């Protein structure tokens, strides 16, 4: 028999970026808000204090701030013909864990999607014709526009403390910024960070080729900054311990630094750690939720937490899993194409070129997670989909984000991996390498989806989430297009050695190497309840008092890092909740 806690107005599942945002916004409405977080409580000091946090073995290699796969994981397969196996060793993606979530250990890259990306199906058909869309691609428009989201992007950027250089201010193109971005109502709240040598070289080469380099926008403070909640960031010292680490310097925008101390002051907000939500409980008619049941890891018991409003703010994988386990949305069936929950999983298509110079010295120990110069000349709104034979695009960038010795010791191919030859290689090439990377879109397909695993169960006896994902030809053609462009830029820099890494036709998804923690889709947003789980306000079509934040809402992935869109959508949903839903709870669409 589950213990029952006193009812709350709102229960929030997961206390990362979106949990903190929704917690703050709804606490400001005077509601009793409770956040449930399965992991540990964390704060800058003592958890990220220097020099303990700069322990690459503990945090960089063994990923101490990331979800423990022994406690929670999913199964993965590439095709329906394979048997999915549990993801037992962290590799391809690193979901967060504990208060702050993945917002603790991210690099800080913060982008807005291009306006065209939010209406990609309509844009593609209008510009290039319906026949451009491959038969197995689930291309959809987002059910809202860039203009509607713009104030909410702006809000998130100001809360998270983004340093950058605007390229399009209310329609006016600003030199030095990204000329291909959507119009911004205001400049970034902090000027762009200074750049490292590799980024400067890349920008020069790109400029010579007629491209438009600009500094990467990121949640790394370039000066002392105070956000709307009175929360503070201090200028970054370029230590280079961002991704996989918490910031000891109050310089990286994260839920701790930007929201949580302000939220904790609110008497009507509370949070409980080591509480893992097992399912959303629905009323008998399945039209509303009554609360959530969670497992209290401290006392070892199941607890029912009643609430009027349930907001899933966990990582995309967990949100999708919880929806399936709670029976919200009809499960997606890849054979019939019917059902919605689990439909439209997508990832990110990246590639890179490594450059080695005998006569150039980089200081790889200097960097920030969002360091770098970028070009968006091959972004989605600059590509002729019909001519190039793919739908998508990438941004291309260079910039040292860290020089951590264990994982950041690039060597030319053929250098021995150990022993004397390896040491000689290090001696010759350490500090002489830079790389150019592409970060590209990934579309959604009929055969890329998530469901409940028929074999493997988690520690609570629930079926695990199963991911079925493989690379598709459309995205491989996209990344091969980028390869040509990037090698051209790289050649301009005249490196002594140049080596490329791009997915080739027929490439199979490999979960072992880290690629990116940009898992999206699975509970996508849309106007049509037969092809989407959420409406335009991130509210589930079927259960009106359940809202779902995060990148699970993306119908297909954008070419950028997702946090800017996730943050913008969270403020957009919070606005709808505050100004409309709370007055009259109902399906808002």
């Amino acid at each position: 028999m589950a213990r029952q806690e006193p009812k709350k107005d709102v229960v929030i599942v997961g206390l990362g970026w979106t949990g903190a945002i929704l917690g703050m916004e709804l606490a400001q409405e005077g509601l009793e808000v409770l956040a449930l977080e399965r992991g540990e409580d964390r704060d800058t000091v003592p958890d990220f204090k220097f020099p303990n946090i700069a322990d690459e073995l503990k945090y960089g290699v063994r990923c101490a701030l990331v979800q423990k796969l022994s406690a929670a994981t999913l199964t993965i397969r590439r095709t329906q013909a394979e048997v999915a196996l549990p993801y037992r060793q962290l590799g391809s993606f690193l979901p967060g864990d504990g208060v702050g979530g993945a917002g603790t250990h991210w690099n800080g890259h913060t982008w807005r999607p291009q306006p065209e990306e939010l209406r990609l199906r309509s844009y593609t058909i209008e510009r290039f014709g319906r026949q451009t869309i491959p038969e197995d691609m689930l291309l959809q428009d987002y059910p809202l526009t860039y203009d509607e989201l713009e104030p909410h992007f702006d809000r998130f950027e100001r809360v998270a403390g983004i340093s950058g250089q605007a390229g399009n201010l209310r329609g006016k193109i600003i030199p030095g910024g990204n000329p291909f971005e959507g119009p911004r109502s205001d400049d970034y709240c902090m000027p762009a960070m200074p750049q490292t040598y590799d980024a400067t070289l890349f920008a020069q080469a790109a400029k010579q080729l007629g491209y438009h380099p600009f500094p990467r926008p990121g949640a790394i403070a370039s000066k002392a900054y105070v956000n709307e909640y009175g929360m503070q960031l201090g200028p970054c010292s370029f230590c280079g311990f961002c991704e996989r680490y918490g910031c000891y310097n109050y310089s990286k925008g994260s839920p701790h630094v930007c929201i949580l101390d302000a939220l904790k002051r609110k008497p009507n907000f509370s949070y409980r750690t080591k509480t893992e939500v097992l399912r959303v409980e629905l009323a008998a008619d399945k039209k509303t939720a009554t609360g959530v049941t969670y497992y209290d890891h401290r006392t070892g018991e199941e607890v029912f937490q009643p609430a009027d409003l349930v907001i899933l703010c966990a990582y995309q994988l967990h949100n999708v899993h919880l929806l399936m386990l709670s029976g919200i949305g009809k499960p997606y069936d890849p054979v019939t194409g019917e059902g919605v929950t689990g439909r439209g999983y997508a990832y990110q298509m990246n590639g890179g070129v490594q450059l080695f110079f005998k006569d150039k010295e980089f200081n790889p120990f200097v960097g920030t997670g969002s360091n770098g110069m970028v070009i968006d000349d091959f972004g989605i709104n600059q590509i002729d989909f019909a001519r190039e034979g793919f739908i998508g695009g990438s941004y291309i960038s260079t910039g040292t984000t860290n020089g951590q010795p264990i994982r950041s010791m690039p060597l030319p191919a053929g250098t021995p991996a150990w022993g004397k030859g390896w040491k000689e290689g290090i001696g010759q090439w350490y500090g002489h390498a830079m790389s150019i990377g592409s970060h590209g879109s990934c579309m959604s397909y009929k055969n890329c989806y998530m469901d409940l695993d028929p074999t493997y169960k988690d520690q609570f006896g629930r079926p695990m989430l199963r991911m079925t994902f493989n690379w598709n030809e459309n995205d491989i053609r996209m990344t091969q297009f980028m390869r040509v462009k990037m090698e051209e830029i790289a050649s301009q820099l005249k490196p002594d050695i140049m080596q490329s890494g791009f997915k080739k036709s027929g490439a199979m998804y490999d979960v072992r190497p880290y690629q990116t923690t940009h898992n999206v889709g699975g509970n996508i947003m849309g106007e049509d309840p037969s092809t989407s789980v959420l409406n335009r306000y991130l509210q589930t079509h079927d259960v009106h008092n359940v809202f779902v934040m995060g990148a699970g809402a993306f119908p297909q992935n954008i070419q950028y890092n997702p946090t800017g869109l996730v943050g913008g959508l969270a403020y957009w949903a919070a606005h709808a909740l505050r100004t409309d839903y709370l007055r009259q709870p109902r399906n808002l669409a």
Partner: protein
Amino acid sequence: MKTLMRIVLALIVLAVLVIAAMLWVPVQHTPSKSLDEPEAVVTVARGEYIMRASDCLACHTTDGGRPFTGGRKIDSPFGIIYSTNITPDKETGIGTYSLDEFRAALYDGLRNDGTHLYPAMPYENYRFLSEVDVRSLYLYFMQEVPAVHNAVPQTVLVFPFNQRWGVRAWKWLALQESEFQSISFDAQINRGAYLVQGPAHCAACHSPRTALMTQKGVSEKNSAFLTGGELNGWSVPDLRSKDSVSAMWSTQQMANYLATGRNDYATSVGQMSLVVEHSLQYLTDEDNLAIAAYLTHLSASSNEGALSLQEDKTPTQTERLLTSADPSMPLGARLYLDNCGGCHFVDGRGAAEIFPALDGNTLVNADSATGLIHVILHGAELPSTTHRPARLRMQGHAWRLSDEEVAALATFVRQGWHNQATAVSANAVKLLR
């Protein structure tokens, strides 16, 4: 011989008479002041505000205890004093106090049974409270604060300090001024002066103490008023001289510091953080600005110092040394780069409201290095306040640096950039671990 005997006898008789007088002559209460505002403005809300301004909560509550139930340990040079329960509980609190008795506690340091309160209760300063504020405070405690039955531990000091009648003799020396006197035509400065001298009892820490531990200056009539003191071995900053923060900072910057524990140059440390957390953050912006205006007035400053502090960007010798990356640089400089430079930077200027500037920093340059050593060893935390909720923390380094290293680092910081304070010894560090 006879003469000597007579003198000794006379002295003994005199002493007996004085002691007898102290024991049996009734204690006089300072009379109530005239109400310079109508009785109507006596409100619970005003009382609560004055309670905040007077910081009653901080001393009369234990960590995690119910508000005003007392029992907090207060370290005094004479031993531990336990604060009292000031909830309106009739047995263990102040529930039986009449308004006059309540006033006597604030003005004369008297319990309603006639016992003398130890001057850990700053009645030297509360004597300046206006009648409207006393009545409002009384109303607040009697009507708004829930009565809680909580008997606090008895304060037991060593002889002779356990003889409470001795406090009476002390009061003859300490309680000289009894009325706040306006000092300026400027209403804002007057308001600031009232808050500083009365409820906020700034002199309790920021004025020096006499040999008999009375405050050396409860108002600016005394030239030592607010010229800095000492508390638990820490130097308490001077707020009056030409090179004090009152002179260096603009009134807005001072008000920011008071309300949030941080401004463009400095962050609060030690006891001041508690004052910000429990008291000053609750004052209106106008009142914190009034305090700042009074302090500016007191230092006779035009606030030009603050400007020059920020504008001179010429790299100092210290900055050049730190950026030289010279492997043979002294231990203190190397430790600074390895432990401090990430936030306070090589120019020692830090960043506004988050990383305090060390160049010119009051704590760094204090006569006593105790505060600086304490912060290096044990870290610091800013209080969460309404305007600046972040509990920004500096980590401690006690686990990481030896006594010799902390001494070298503290000496480097005390003598780096424009700082010119004395060196720190490893022994001084050892005592604070």
